[in-house]
């Protein structure tokens, strides 16, 4: 579904990414992990169609991505919620831009807010919410237009452990239920392993993929407490430690 073929990204005087390639089928989940500055976020921006690749091809269903695509939703780092819009206005924004009828937009927003347990905050401004609540709003906004692909940039990095695991579980369930194609950029090893069918380990400046770890036992029951979970985590920890 998504194919990245020998993609590089350069700015004048700096090379961010070099020769990145991977493929992702519909309904699959990919985690990208690596140290800060290795270009993980840049990959997401390119898939979202916000910035072009300097060379190589990024394609979706065989067509090159040149601009933001209506099937893609992107949750930016620090959520990207507009401070001057209330929770429900933020959630309906994507639908408003895509010209959904007003009644449909408000019905969808209310349903999603209820699903995510933040309906009671619908008329508040983001500044008054906690980190976890903001992240739920961002997820609600991303899902409102029923995308096929969800991109998340360090979605839970500023949350406390309890909230983070709860939201990881929420995303896990949403991914299963809607058969989304999911790409998560993170620097938490546990998060990468919990959410990714495949885990790309990146490093370097310019950034390169140093290893692709397959995580086939991920969808087993109670994976987070299983032996496999810990063994994959320590494999990846070792890889990153050796960098």
């Amino acid at each position, binding site marked *: 579904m998504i194919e990245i073929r020998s993609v590089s990204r350069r700015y004048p005087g700096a090379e961010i990414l070099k020769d990145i390639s991977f493929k992702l089928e519909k309904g699959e989940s990919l985690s990208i992990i690596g140290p800060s500055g290795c270009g993980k976020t840049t990959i997401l921006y390119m898939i979202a*169609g916000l910035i072009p690749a300097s060379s190589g091809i990024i394609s979706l269903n065989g067509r090159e991505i040149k601009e933001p695509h*209506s099937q893609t939703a992107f949750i930016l780092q620090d959520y990207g919620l507009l401070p001057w819009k209330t929770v429900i206005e933020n959630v309906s*924004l994507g639908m408003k*831009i895509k010209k959904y009828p007003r009644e449909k937009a408000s019905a969808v927003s209310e349903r999603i807010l209820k699903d995510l347990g933040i309906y009671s905050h619908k008329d508040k401004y983001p500044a*008054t919410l906690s980190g976890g609540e903001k992240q739920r709003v961002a997820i609600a906004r991303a899902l409102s237009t029923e995308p096929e692909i969800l991109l998340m940039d360090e979605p839970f990095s500023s949350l406390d452990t309890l909230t983070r695991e709860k939201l990881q579980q929420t995303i896990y369930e949403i991914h299963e239920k809607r058969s989304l194609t999911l790409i998560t950029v993170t620097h938490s090893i546990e998060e990468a392993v919990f959410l990714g069918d495949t885990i790309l380990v990146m490093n370097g400046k310019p950034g390169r993929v140093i290893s692709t770890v397959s995580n086939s036992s991920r969808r087993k029951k109670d994976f987070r407490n299983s032996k496999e979970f810990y063994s994959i985590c320590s494999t990846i920890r070792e890889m990153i430690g050796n960098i």
Partner: protein
Amino acid sequence: MKQKIPFINIFVSLSVIFVLWKIASAAAASAILPSPEDVLIAFIAEAQKSIFWTHFGISAWRVCASIFLSWIIAFPLGTILGYSPFLDRIFSPVVYMAYPVPKMVLLPVVVLLFGLGDLSKIILITLILFFQILVAVRDGVRSVSPKYYDSVRSMGGSVSDIFRHVVIPAALPHSFTAVRISTGTAISVLFFAESFATSSGLGYLIMDAWARADYIMIFVGITGMSLMGLALFIIFSLLEKKLCSWNYTMENEKSHERGLIGKTVTYSKMIKLSHTIFALPFAMSGLVLALKEHTVTLQMVLWIIIAMIGARSAAMGFNRIADADIDAENSEICLLLSFPLLLFLFFYSYTKRFTWLAHIYLGFAIGLAPVAVWIAIAGVPELSVIILSLILMTHIAGFDILYSCQDVDFDKEKNLFSIPARFGVKKAFFISALLHIITVALIIALYFTAGFGVYYFIFTAVIAVLYVIEHKIVNPDDISNINIAFFHINSIISVTVFFAVLTGYLTGK
């Protein structure tokens, strides 16, 4: 509850103004400064006549039309310049060239081009407000975090979506702030425009009353203009709260602590500049001294106030010189008065780098104000006015030493010179007290050189007591009391000196 606080504040401020005005008019005992109740009665009487409201309405129309016109042009332009670095690069130089030009001097040209009617006044005010709003909006949009753009673009948003959902809401509060701040400017310019070749508006009302020596009517007009300014200010504040409500949701939860921190930071930054405010009553005292042998017109009084305020704003402008924030609306006399003062003030920040006498220097720089006033009006300074300057100098140097006790660690670390850093906090307190004893001695000396009436000593005694209180509330072991209360005592002393001189003059020979 929260809603009511501003009104209580307004009420308190009004009462303070009323009381001070009453004291001043009682002390002056002259028709030029009528008592506030006379003005209030006259105002209420006028307010029942349609002619007053005609003038009021015409002035209000001119100001509101100008504000609306400048906003409707500057806001879209500012958002575009803020959003597009390309266009900004093209137009910025034009804005930077035009912004500091004193637009007020264009009055004759504007009148020639657009006639004597409303249009020329509206255009003049618009010219001035336009740039303030433009720059505020552009800078506001520039500071928008790119993540909001990315966020809207990733949803498939076009440029018009970005403007609608990001740029315009982000720019709105900035434009409101600019409009609110420029209300005062707008009304000042309006007065200026209405004082010239016109027969309507509150400005005309004031100038006409002046020509007829109807002092009460002058103050009725001033009251009318002030009320208009206040009303506009409140309207814009309410509009901002309504249209930019997201900026106020945090208020209940977090503004309390944030407000406190913010206050202390700006407070300590502004303090040196705040010293200049103490010079105004002294400049006025210099004026009173000059009364004895020279004629002083109301115009001179006005210009001196403008000069002092101009010097202050310009000094603050120096701080933000990169922003080119000096709107030079000052006339020539203003510049003549304030410019040398400014040079001295400007030099102050450097003196701290090489001598602990910096406090004395600061006192000297600000202390020049009365002598400057004298020179502007009467020429060669007399002994009395020199003594007055020395009073101001020792007054300021004395408390500047106390203030710098707070910065003693910083100064030591940065190798800056100050009396506390050089001699220690205890000795600094002693030196400060000594300086203020000299201040009081000089105030007593002024009695003899100026030939004041004996009532002068009532105020002298008050000043002496205030100094004692000031030095009692701070002590070398705990300098945390050098706070706003302390600041207030200093301003009360300055004002008391003015009343002392005024009383001394009025009751003297």
